[in-house]
Structure formats: structure tokens, C-alpha cells
């Protein structure tokens, strides 16, 4: 009795083995359902975009091949320079703020105090609403005359700051709203990594007499390095793509002081109907994102080793 069950079980296992070894051609059909829209809408536009970038093309006319003229014109276009300079400033403001605040918030929630679940919900919540909500709420919060921020800053003697209406401040106004919006993602990623740190590692350090700060410095932060690298990369890419909140809050103004590359691409295509020029700008942004990501990866690897 036992032997025959054994034989049947063995035969079943053998069949399963054979099934695993067989090549499943039908798998390609499974992948194609996703792969075809992927090719058409994610890959093809990139190739088409490279072509458009070397033409002069408006919605009405036919494309006219112009070689590298678009790129040469961008080189001497002060508005393009300003948009690309602005986005570096955005990155300089937003990426460190998001990383540091998200780490602090995650360390706090990870302590597991009472109501830390509520704190987690509140810290993450701005991340789930759309740019329109972020933009309009912060236009109101940062209003020079009646906004909450200037109201409370007034208590500590800081005069009304024209957050969104002056050339010197508009970029910072938009950056504040962006930090509020973006932080949730970084926060959740860092929190998940904190929860993965083995408890006995920290306990052992405590037993060895390490205080909270040396535990943070020598145990926790080194363990967080991979996730911090990922957070910085993701946030950097997100910031280089900054658009919607600018569109809602300032319209790139005043005088282009808060415009970003995508904002400039938007006005070039939609307002000025220069699709070739807009595509060329997009390709420059693409290359910039690629370069920065690679450089940043290499730096983080150097630091780690």
C-alpha cells in the first residue's frame, strides 16, 4: 500500500518536473498583452522623439529636417538656460530636505510610541493627492498678505515674504510645496528599511554601552545606506521632472524665475507650437537625468566601499 502511494507520488513529481522543463511558448502571448502597449506607448515615442528633435514641426505643417539646428538654438536660448539652472536649484533645495526630514520622521515612527500609526498616516497623506491640490493649497498657505505661513512667521518677527510673487522667492515657494508633496514616498521607503534592521544588532550595541546617537551613527545609518541611495536617486529624478505644481502655483513666473525644463517644454509645444524644438529640449533633459543618475550611483558606490 505504502509503496504504491510512493510510486504515484513519484510519478506525479516526475510529471511536474517535466512540466517545469517544458518551454512555454504561450508565455510570450502572456507577455505580449503588456508588451505591445509597452512598445507602442513607452518605447516608440522615444525613438519618434529623437526624430522629431531634428525637425521643425508644427501641428499644421509637415516636418522639415533641420539637422542639429534645434540644439544649437537651445545653446543660445536664455530661457532654456534659466529653466535648466532653476531645476538644479530645485534639486538642491528639495532633495536634501526630503531625505533628511523623511529620515527623521521614519526614525520617530519606528520608535513605536503610542499613536505612531496615526503619525505614519499623517506624514504620508500629502503624497496621495494630485498636484492640483498641492498647488492650490500652497498658493493659499503662502499668500503674502493672508497666508498661514506668513501669519505664523510674523509671530517670530519675520516680515511678510512674497513667496510666489517675487523673482527671488518664487522658486523656494514652489520647493516648499514640493517637499510637502514628495516626502511621503521617501518616508515609507526609509521606514520599511528601518523595520528590516535586525533588533539584536541594535540591542547588542546598547548592551555594549552605545548611546542613542552612536547607535544612530554607527549602526542605523550604515544599514540605511542602500535605501538612502535609492531615495536620493528617485527624488532627484522626480525633481528634475518637476512641472505640475509650477503650472498651478506660479505659471513659471514671475519672469521665468520658477520655470523648469518641463514647464518650458510645455510652453514651447503648446503656446509656441514648436514641436521639434520642444522634443530637442526633452532629449537634453533625458540625457541630463541619465547622467546625473549614473554619476550619483557611482558616488554612492564609492562612499559605500
Amino acid at each position, binding site marked *: 500500500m505504502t509503496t504504491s502511494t510512493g510510486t504515484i507520488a513519484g510519478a506525479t513529481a516526475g510529471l511536474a518536473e517535466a512540466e517545469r522543463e517544458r518551454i512555454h511558448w504561450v508565455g510570450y502571448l502572456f507577455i505580449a498583452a503588456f508588451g505591445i502597449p509597452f512598445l507602442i506607448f513607452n518605447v516608440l515615442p*522615444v525613438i519618434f522623439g529623437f526624430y*522629431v528633435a531634428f525637425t521643425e514641426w508644427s501641428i499644421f505643417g509637415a516636418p522639415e529636417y533641420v539637422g542639429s539646428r534645434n540644439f544649437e538654438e537651445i545653446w543660445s536660448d536664455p530661457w532654456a538656460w534659466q529653466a535648466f539652472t532653476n531645476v538644479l536649484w530645485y534639486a538642491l533645495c528639495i532633495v536634501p530636505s526630503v531625505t533628511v526630514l523623511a529620515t527623521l*520622521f521614519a526614525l520617530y515612527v519606528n520608535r513605536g510610541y503610542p499613536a505612531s500609526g496615526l503619525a505614519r498616516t499623517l506624514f504620508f497623506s500629502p503624497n496621495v*493627492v494630485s498636484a492640483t491640490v498641492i498647488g492650490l493649497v500652497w*498658493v493659499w498657505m503662502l499668500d503674502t498678505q493672508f497666508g498661514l505661513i506668513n501669519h505664523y512667521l510674523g509671530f517670530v518677527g519675520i516680515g511678510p515674504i512674497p513667496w510666489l510673487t517675487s523673482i527671488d522667492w518664487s522658486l523656494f515657494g514652489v520647493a516648499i510645496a514640493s517637499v510637502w508633496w514628495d516626502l511621503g514616498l521617501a518616508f515609507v521607503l526609509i521606514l520599511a528599511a528601518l523595520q528590516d534592521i535586525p533588533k539584536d544588532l541594535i540591542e547588542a550595541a546598547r548592551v555594549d554601552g552605545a548611546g542613542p546617537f552612536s547607535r544612530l551613527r554607527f549602526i542605523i545609518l550604515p544599514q540605511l545606506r542602500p535605501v538612502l541611495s535609492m531615495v536620493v536617486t528617485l527624488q532627484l529624478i522626480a525633481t528634475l521632472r518637476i512641472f505640475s505644481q509650477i503650472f*498651478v*502655483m506660479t505659471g513659471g513666473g514671475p519672469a521665468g524665475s520658477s520655470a523648469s525644463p518641463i514647464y518650458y517644454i510645455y510652453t514651447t509645444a503648446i503656446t509656441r507650437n514648436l514641436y521639434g524644438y520642444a522634443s530637442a529640449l*526633452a532629449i537634453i533633459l533625458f540625457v541630463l537625468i541619465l547622467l546625473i543618475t549614473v554619476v550619483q550611483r557611482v558616488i554612492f558606490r564609492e562612499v559605500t566601499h
Partner: protein
Amino acid sequence: MKGRMRELGMTRGDVIVWIGGLLVALAWAAPFVWMVSTSFKFPADVMTQDIEWFPRRWTLDNYRKVFEYPVIRWGFNSLVQATVSTGLCVFFGAMAGYALARLRVPGGRIIFLVFLASLMIPSEVTVVPMLLAFIKIGWASTYQALILPTIANVFSVYIFRQFFLSFPREIEEAARLDGASAFKTFLLVALPLARAPMIAASVIIFTLNWNNFLWPLLVVFDDEMKTLPVGIAAFAPITGSHTQLEAFSVSMAAVTVLSVPSLLLFFFLQKYFIQGISQGGVKQ
């Protein structure tokens, strides 16, 4: 109180950090409270130096002004776009993720790497040529223009592939040995088991679609076909048609309407949001 704190193993320093952190968390979400509070105020109570977190006088006038615009229609467009797009993306993503994890498909690894590599291409870069293409074929301001470019979100493939890689395959193998086809096994056996990644992928991708801004802004020229975020963005004081006095109260009512669905979805399905995001670490 002091006794209880000690029971929880909290020192005085702990209590200070605990309360301080909670206050920061409350302040972090305060702009939402301010948004809702402003939306119920009379314009005269908004444009003042007196800060009233809880309105003294209430009005629904701001909401009435918001609904003078085709907000219902925009909401319907958003719902159609987000639902259809998320449904297709999750289903196709589940199929591809399943095949990549379970079926022997030569070159599957390379295909998956290509999917992942595409995350390096920001969608904003593909938007201009895509817009040009959609205008040229006469599909501007249509549902297919809103939906099609958003269905190939790699996050969906990724999350299902990870799930099936770490999930025992015995149940499916039994079904296959009973002679069920690969598709039938996937649809009737594997997919019902993949509830967790399905909900996580659905809520995250739905939220991304619901909040999507640049593409619907570009491809829709007809007011009736706008999505909710794009339609509501027109309430911005810099572009809006309201007087300066009522611009803020009306715009806060508009964004309250816009944010309530996302916030409710998040509060009820929080677990899946946070699991999904920390698993994927990908947001497009």
C-alpha cells in the same frame, strides 16, 4: 499619567520626543484642515488677518460656485480614465508578471530587464512626440487618448512577478496536470491567489492615474473632456476667473472635492499602499 508612562517603559525624554513628534505630524497634515476649513467660510472671513481654524459662520456657497463648472463631467472622465486604465494595466501586468515568474520563456529575464530599464525614461520626455502623434491621427480630446498611453505601467509587472516568485507553485501545477490550459490556470487558480499584489497594484496605479496631470493637460483641448485635476487647476488664482476676494474660498472648495476620493481611498486601504510602495519603490 506618570505611572502609565513608566509602565510603557518611557522616560521623561521619551515623553518629550513622543509629544513633539505627534505635534509635528499634526502640523504636517494641518494644510488639509486649513483647506477644508477655508472651503466652508464666507470670502470676507477668509481674506482677513484673523486665523479661524474652525469657522464661526458656515456656508456652502463656495461649493455651489464650484459646481457651476462641469465638475461632475470632469469627475466622470477621471473615473472612466482611471478605472479602465488601472483595470487593463493590472490585468496585463499580472499576466506578464506571472509568465515571467512561472512559465519557462526563453529570454524572459532580458524582457524583464528591458521593462525595468524603461523606468529610466521619464514619461515627460515621451509626451511631446506622443501628443504630436495623437493630434495627427485625430485622437486629441478622446478617451482612448487619455487611457492608452497610461496602461503600460511596469510597476504592475514588477509587483506580480515578485509575488509569484515567492509563492508556492504546487496548487497551479496540480491544475496543469489535470489538463487545464496555461491561461485557464492563470485566470482561475493563480490570479485568485494573488489578492495582495492585486489590491496593492490597483490602489497605487489608480491613484497615479487619478492624479495624472501633464498628459491629460496636453491631449485634451475640449473643456468637456478634461479630467478632474486639470479642470480644477483652472481655479488657480493666477488663471481663475473669480474675483480676488473669493478666489481662495472657491479654490479650496474645489480642491476639497478633488482630494476627498484619494484621501478616503488611502485611509481605508493604507496597508496596501504602504506595502506596495515599500515593495516596489517605484513610482512613475
